[in-house]
């Protein structure tokens, strides 16, 4: 985990964003009300300053990967391994496991701060890279809890910054 701190992971690249990906995202997040036309009506969107359909700021072009692994997953696995090791080191001798499987933990999303740049549009291809910024452990309502803070940067095919996210992962 210490080795990963501050080190950018591998860059992932999204498939080209499709109009229908944006439309479905907007329908799902506005449900049951209809989403605004900027997200689905190309004729209307052409009259705005954007000149085309744009995606909602929170749109995720990386949903539905064929292979499920990435820098975030690697960082979280490393964090879990370190937390498990620390739990073992902190345990009293009588608490040490005796051939039992380690306790299963639950991961949750603690929150995020996103700074936005260029909007995402149909046809855009987004690149993503992440790095573990820091972590801390403390006793929470649900027991010993690990908090990890990860930075993820998205850029588009022109190299413009699309989004910078600082996210908080929680595992207990």
């Amino acid at each position, binding site marked *: 985990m210490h080795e990963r701190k501050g080190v950018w992971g591998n860059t992932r690249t999204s498939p080209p964003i499709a109009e229908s990906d944006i439309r479905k995202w907007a329908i*799902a997040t*506005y449900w049951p009300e209809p989403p605004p036309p900027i997200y689905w009506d190309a004729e209307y969107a052409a*009259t705005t300053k954007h000149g085309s359909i744009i995606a909602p700021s*929170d749109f*995720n072009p990386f949903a539905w990967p064929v292979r499920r692994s990435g820098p975030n997953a690697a960082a979280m696995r490393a964090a879990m391994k370190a937390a498990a090791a620390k739990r073992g080191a902190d345990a009293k001798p009588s608490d040490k496991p005796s051939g039992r499987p380690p306790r299963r933990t639950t991961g*949750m999303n*603690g929150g995020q*701060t996103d700074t*936005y740049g260029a909007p995402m549009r149909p046809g855009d291809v987004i690149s993503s890279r992440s790095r573990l910024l820091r972590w801390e452990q403390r006793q929470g309502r649900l027991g010993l809890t690990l908090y990890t803070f990860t930075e993820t940067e998205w850029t588009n095919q022109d190299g413009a910054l699309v989004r910078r996210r600082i996210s908080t992962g929680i595992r207990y």
Partner: protein
Amino acid sequence: MAVHVYFEDVEVGTEMPAWSRTTGLMNWNRYAAVNDEFVPFHMDDEAGRRAKNEQGAFGMGNLRYAYLVNALRDWIGDEAEIREVGCQYRAINQKGDVLTVTGKVTEKKTVDGEHLVYLETNVVNQNGEPTCPGHAIVVLENRPGDAS
């Protein structure tokens, strides 16, 4: 073109229009489908209870974040920009909750020609309990003809 609010229209203390959704599996399953977020505790009551939520399955933090973004977009219109959104997930989104996005302007200033408006935001449930304290920064246009 849809412009809903200009820089001159807001002052410190101005509140965004409230934006609400009644949440449950119909919302969560749609969000799971587009975000590929089929996490058992968002889909299944037993899995939710195993994750220590006695009431069963519960909603995604990311969907509450989407509600924040949507509330901001609906308020500022298509010509303005959402520059930053942040929040912390402090309470569980239970089935049947009526979630309402709230926002209040805390500061406005012009920096390098951009008209920035800062907001304190939250997502409150039907009991008035805050579930998701956060903040946002939006960039608004001047009202046409106003050179300030």
